[in-house]
């Protein structure tokens, strides 16, 4: 299971990458593996607000529809539109090609509360 050290993680299996005051968000390798082949990704639009622990979209896999939960609150700056045509990126490249949204955080302390790679690894090993 790939869990990059430099990222932060939420209990709902999202990863967070801090980039000059902005935050890039996607789902983890563990999450994509659990979901199976992803066939559709539903995301918000640039300009929308997302709220920590609230759904900001959903993924449909061949097995199920699951909601995506925002790890932090803020304003959506960018949305990965490649996922419209290529939802399979989520399975193939969850940390690179399948980033989902870039958010301008409204409360930086929310990032601090997220897990580091070791804590996340421990959490999924206990699931």
């Amino acid at each position, binding site marked *: 299971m790939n869990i990059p050290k430099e990222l932060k993680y939420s209990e709902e299996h999202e990863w967070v990458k801090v980039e000059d005051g902005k935050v890039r968000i996607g789902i983890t390798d563990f999450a994509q593996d659990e979901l199976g082949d992803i066939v559709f990704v*539903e995301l918000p639009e640039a300009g929308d607000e997302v709220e920590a622990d609230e759904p900001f979209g959903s993924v449909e896999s061949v097995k199920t529809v699951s909601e995506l939960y925002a790890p932090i609150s803020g304003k959506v700056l960018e949305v990965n539109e490649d996922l419209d045509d290529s939802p399979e990126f989520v399975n193939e490249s969850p940390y690179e090609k399948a980033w989902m949204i870039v958010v301008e955080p409204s409360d930086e302390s929310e990032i601090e509360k997220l897990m580091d790679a070791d804590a996340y690894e421990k959490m999924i090993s206990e699931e």
Partner: protein
Amino acid sequence: MKYINNQDIMDITINFAIEEYALTELDINETYLLFYSMTPTVIVGKNQNTVEEINMDYVRENNVTVCRRLSGGGAVYNDEGDLSFSFITKDDGSSFNNYKKFTEPVVRALRNMGVNAELLGRNDLLVDGKKISGNAQFSTRGRMFSHGTLMFDVNLDNVAKALNPDPEKYLSKGIKSVRSRVTNIRDHLKEDMDIHQFKEMLLQYIFEGEKGIPEYKLTEKDWKRIMEIAEKRYRNWDWVYGKSPEFNVKQTKRFPSGKVDVRLEVKKGLIEQAAIFGDFFAVGDIHDIEKRLVGVKYKREDLMDALTDIDASYYLGKISKEEFVNMLF
């Protein structure tokens, strides 16, 4: 596990609302079982383009309800002869994705009735290679439901009629439906029974080993919320149609006065771009009509309203407003 009696309500918008309510607002540690049949209804998957899946004319002329579900997958046509079942439960990590767990009691019951059903592919129940049940799941906040249709005695002629015969008119990134060969359970029974007896038998098998059938009785307060959910989501055009992934429409029609070719780009249910071509002869600049269409819901009534004060003959010649709006679907 508790059984929720839906009082034999056949309105899909209420049944979906009961399901959603039990999922998100009842005891998070309880498992609920719900059954429902419905008046003729087409149900599309969470990420489908509704208009691409239904035969608009048939649906309108025959008062077929159209609804979108929370779970994924393709479009289905159901009626009073369908008995859908739904397990609403905790998402404990092992239930999620596990269709076997939820279809197994149903398969067991069917086999005892002489129906040689098996779970094939990922989430279909088949008899002799023909589908009798499609299943799908949705999960949110540690809860999930796994629901499935059971074609007991569905009017199979209407299945093909209600679903769109011409999906080429649309281009979208939504989930496409896969047509399957289907059959009714009733034709495979050792001993004939009606759908009510069938439901009772299923209940007995699913609650096998338990003392009676424990029931959760919906209270007045529950019903109030359920009706709110039905209204807010399942009867709402924005959910049923507007939620469709972005799509393009290409419609052409030959009228006595000429050919009309319309291209629309629809996003979040609203027309974002419109282009009209053709060789019908009229005086007005057709761009005026295109401009009128932009920003309007891709919905018959709203389009009629948007064109209400225009002089049809000035722009469309011998083509009436109704004819023009009708050809957009």
